């Protein structure tokens, strides 16, 4: 029955009831008048005896209505009135809970989105991805020869298995300007393993993936739209790839398919440079295969392990101790591999958010407990005049439910707002990263809200029903708080204080860490600088001399452009991942076995004026360095500290070996370079490279090897946009088919590299700030409530001559006690949080005395103010007025 029909029916019933009762009265009057009485007398008598029509009606209504429902409506109204009467306290409790839940929800959703990304493929949890791991636990891909052996011998998969390798792919002039893209070389069956079909054109065939086959490419819908204006005649178009081979575009992928990461161009694996001659210890491939319904990853592992063992026997020099690493695609993306380390960091804000939720719950608990004491008299009265216990419990539950549901609705609103703002601001930095509300999470939050409010909301009922009714009535007269309730309140306040202390300290540590990054970043001149990547194709720039010549020509052209003040090339710009090489010996003495990896950047001499702010010691490279007989290196301060000890680093000798063949699937390998013996000619300041803390670094002169792929850094005045155009013109004037890579300013790269720490710091600051406000509010309301409750007592004391300071101390005592106990418990908790942060975030100090002292001082001040304000109010009371207040 709809509500209005119910209403109409209700009205009809009312009318009938009225008519029936009037009929009765009229009949009685008529009868008695007939018997000789006067009508007025009869009416008066009837009013006296029957007790009024309304009362009769009310009893009749009660008969009609199902009693439980009638009471429920009354209870909801009553609960609403009670909550509304305590306006501010209720608003405070609801807002606290809502904010805390909102923060928890938002934090969880963004963490979840980062940790658990979903693929737009059919059953990504049934796609196995295979890599290798060596004896030292280092992960790498597979070499092409290994892949061929694995593919031939592994029979576990449902359908074919496939492999792919990451490589930048640039498209040359074809109406559009040459451009570099993230590319993937895929074996012919890759897309059928993924179960993805091109939206336009065709998939690769086995014929495409043969050595010597015509080069073909599939493009993403992304560049189909941006580069080719979504035109259908893109199919069959020829475009030069990587400055050399003309490839035919045969397909366009559907929207959203950019496997893997942000790939825009796919080519057959056979087109991958150097594939045919690939050694077994060059491992750029990853292999995928579909799991059949009855097989799990262990079956795959069981099948691949003996295959790998056989290869280790057959090729001991390259495959010794190489074991298969098997995950599902989902796992590999979301928790396996490189993400593993980061995971612990992701959980920190989550934990912090959970603690804020706890603080909010404690506030609510305190509010409800305080009210429990206050309301025990009301409850005792209601019990005394015949309310059942169930009725009272139900009433309190309804109150809690109201609190919880309002808070929940607000929390959902808050987090929706926060996520909308966050989503509109940040471009996705991770592939397949989507932020969305999660029904399970909202349900969990509702449960948390219900449990919190329900648990503490019921306290009054439990408390009241435990005491004899008469007792409750007696005590109610004085509104005292029973010691048990007071103990709970104080315990909750202390716990709140301690948790807040730990959270604030954590926030302080992350913030300090963030500002430390700033300090280190002053060693790099980021302003007015654009960077891009230049990849010289091996076919046209086969020799070192050709590459050196290109860059000399480019530099001359760039420096002749008005406004351009400097240019430099390096294999990696600051704040970004750089290659590593093995440091085999220092001054002729071998280092450890295996030799340590040191971060190595190959730079032009001008790098130390254009990018890094000068040298700490010694000189920069000259144009001579890097030519035979002039092998030189510059190390950073960190390198000198770690490997060279005391003494002047300049003049010491190092031997450096090319990068290990491992890990090469993450980035393209630098070209093979012979081991070099170099003399240190200078020491550079530390900058951030690879990691957020300084790592030992070696800079080598560009001229020695002239790597094919380098970053170009150009500084100039007069706006960045014209400079980018100038750079493109200069590059294409030398080589019209050469594409620039992604163009970014150095500022942008620096900010991106800070974003993780910045996010972390801001998350912690938000959470720590909320915790501070919540515990301040919690303490304040508890104190204010205590003052209100003891108004009469204070008045009596004041009337009897107590000093204001004495009265104030009465309340400050509680505040002081909470602060002391809170510090005693909170400092160790803060140290634990600091330790966890240190473990996840390298270089945060686990115990930072300044941060800790500032935190304690801040928190203690807030707590003191929160207790002084109500205490002062107590002493300002006019005794006569106070005595009259109940």
């Amino acid at each position, binding site marked *: 029955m709809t509500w209005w029909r119910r209403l109409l029916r209700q009205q009809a019933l009312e009318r009938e009831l009225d008519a029936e009762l009037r*009929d*009765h009265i009229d*009949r009685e009057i008529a009868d008695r008048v007939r018997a000789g009485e006067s009508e007025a007398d009869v009416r008066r008598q009837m009013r006296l005896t029957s007790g009024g029509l309304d009362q009769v009606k009310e009893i*009749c209504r009660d008969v009609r209505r199902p009693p439980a429902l009638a009471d429920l409506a009354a209870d909801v109204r009553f609960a609403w009135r009670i909550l509304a009467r305590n306006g501010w306290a209720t608003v405070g409790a609801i807002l606290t809970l809502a904010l805390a839940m909102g923060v928890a929800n938002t934090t969880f959703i963004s963490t979840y989105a980062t940790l658990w990304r979903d693929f737009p493929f059919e059953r990504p949890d049934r796609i196995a991805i295979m890599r290798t791991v060596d004896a030292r636990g280092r992960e790498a891909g597979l070499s092409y020869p290994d892949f061929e052996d694995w593919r031939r011998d592994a029979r576990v998969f449902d359908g074919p298995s496939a492999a792919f390798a990451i490589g930048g792919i640039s498209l040359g002039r074809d109406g559009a300007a040459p451009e570099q893209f993230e590319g993937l070389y895929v074996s012919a069956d890759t897309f059928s393993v993924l179960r993805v079909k091109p939206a336009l054109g065709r998939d690769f065939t086995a014929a495409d993936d043969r050595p010597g086959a015509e080069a073909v490419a599939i493009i993403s819908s992304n560049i189909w739209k941006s580069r080719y204006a979504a035109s259908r005649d893109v199919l069959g178009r020829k475009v030069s790839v990587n400055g050399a081979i003309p490839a035919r575009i045969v397909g366009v992928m559907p929207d959203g398919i950019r496997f893997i990461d942000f790939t825009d161009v796919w080519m057959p694996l056979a087109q991958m440079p150097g594939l045919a001659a690939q050694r077994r210890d060059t491992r750029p491939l990853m292999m995928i295969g579909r799991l059949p319904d009855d097989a799990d990853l262990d079956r795959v592992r069981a099948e691949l392990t003996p295959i790998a063992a056989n290869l280790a026997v057959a090729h001991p020099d390259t495959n010794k101790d190489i074991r298969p690493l098997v995950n599902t695609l989902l796992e590999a993306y979301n928790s396996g591999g490189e993400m593993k380390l980061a995971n612990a960091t992701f959980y920190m804000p989550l934990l912090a958010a959970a603690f804020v939720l706890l603080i909010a719950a404690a506030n609510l608990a305190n509010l409800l407990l305080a009210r429990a004491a206050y309301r025990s008299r009301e409850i005792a009265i209601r019990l005394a005049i015949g309310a059942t216990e169930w009725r009272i419990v139900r009433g309190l539950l309804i109150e809690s439910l109201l609190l919880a549901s309002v808070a929940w609705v607000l929390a959902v609103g808050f987090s929706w707002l926060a996520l909308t703002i966050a989503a509109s601001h940040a471009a996705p930095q991770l592939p397949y990263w989507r932020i969305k509300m999660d029904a399970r999470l909202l349900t969990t939050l509702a449960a948390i809200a219900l449990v919190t409010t329900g648990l503490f909301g019921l306290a009054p009922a439990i408390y009241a029903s435990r005491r004899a009714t008469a007792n409750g009535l007696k005590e109610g007269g004085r509104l005292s708080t029973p010691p048990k309730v007071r103990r709970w309140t104080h315990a909750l306040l202390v716990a709140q204080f301690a948790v807040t202390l730990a959270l604030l300290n954590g926030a302080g540590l992350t913030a300090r860490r963030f500002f430390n990054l700033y300090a280190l970043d002053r060693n790099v001149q980021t302003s007015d600088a654009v960077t891009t990547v230049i990849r010289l194709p091996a076919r046209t720039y086969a020799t070192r001399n050709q590459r050196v010549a290109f860059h000399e020509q480019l530099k001359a052209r760039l420096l002749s452009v008005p406004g351009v003040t400097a240019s430099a090339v390096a294999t990696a710009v600051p704040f970004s991942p750089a290659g590593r090489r093995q440091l085999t010996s220092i001054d002729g003495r071998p280092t450890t076995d295996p030799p340590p990896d040191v971060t190595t950047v190959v730079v032009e001499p001008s790098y130390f004026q254009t990018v890094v702010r000068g040298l700490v010691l010694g000189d920069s490279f000259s144009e001579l360095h890097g030519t035979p007989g002039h092998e030189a290196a510059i190390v950073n301060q960190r390198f000198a500290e770690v490997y060279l000890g005391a003494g002047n680093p300049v003049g010491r000798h190092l031997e450096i070996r090319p990068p290990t063949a491992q890990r090469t699937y993450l980035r393209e390998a630098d070209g093979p370079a012979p081991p070099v013996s170099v003399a240190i000619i200078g020491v550079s300041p530390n900058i951030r490279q690879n990691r957020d803390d300084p790592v030992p670094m070696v800079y080598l002169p560009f001229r020695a090897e002239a790597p094919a792929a380098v970053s170009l850094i150009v500084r100039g005045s007069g706006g960045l946009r014209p400079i980018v155009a100038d750079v493109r013109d200069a590059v294409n004037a030398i080589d019209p088919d050469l594409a620039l890579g992604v163009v970014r300013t150095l500022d942008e790269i620096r900010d991106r590299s800070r974003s993780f720490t910045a996010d972390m710091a801001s998350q912690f600051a938000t959470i720590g700030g909320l915790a501070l406000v919540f515990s301040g509010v919690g303490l304040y309301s508890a104190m204010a409530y205590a003052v209100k409750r003891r108004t009469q007592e204070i008045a009596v004391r004041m009337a009897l001559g107590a000093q204001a300071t004495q009265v104030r101390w009465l309340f400050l005592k509680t505040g002081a006690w909470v602060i002391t106990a809170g510090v005693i418990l909170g400092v160790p908790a803060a140290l634990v949080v600091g330790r966890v942060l240190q473990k996840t975030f390298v270089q945060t100090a686990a115990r930072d005395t300044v941060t800790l002292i500032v935190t304690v001082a801040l928190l203690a001040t807030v707590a003191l103010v929160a207790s002084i304000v109500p205490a002062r109010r107590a002493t300002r009371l006019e005794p006569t007025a106070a005595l009259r207040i109940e």
Partner: protein
Amino acid sequence: MPDKSDLPQGTLDLLILQVVAGGAIHGYAIAQRLQLISRDVVQVPQGSLYPALHRLENRGLLTADWKTSDTGRESKFYRLTPKGRKQLKAEAASWLRLTEAIDLILKPAGGSR
């Protein structure tokens, strides 16, 4: 006027069912009939009668229609439902059993009054 006696709990329902069993009847007439038959011992005020009637109607023992009575007045007439008839039978029997039992207890053993 003779003493009014309080009705034992629950007996009003039984009496009402008994009266209504005689045919469709409105509230005022029920009160009159009860008073008449009991020789003024049972006087049911509005405040007891109508809640009882509505309760019985709600429980499905009585059903009611609005009809124009002999005097040309619109009144609500109550009738027994089959369920009410069954209930009346059961309650009347149980009442009789109970009163016989009480009689037995109140009478001096084997003697006459």
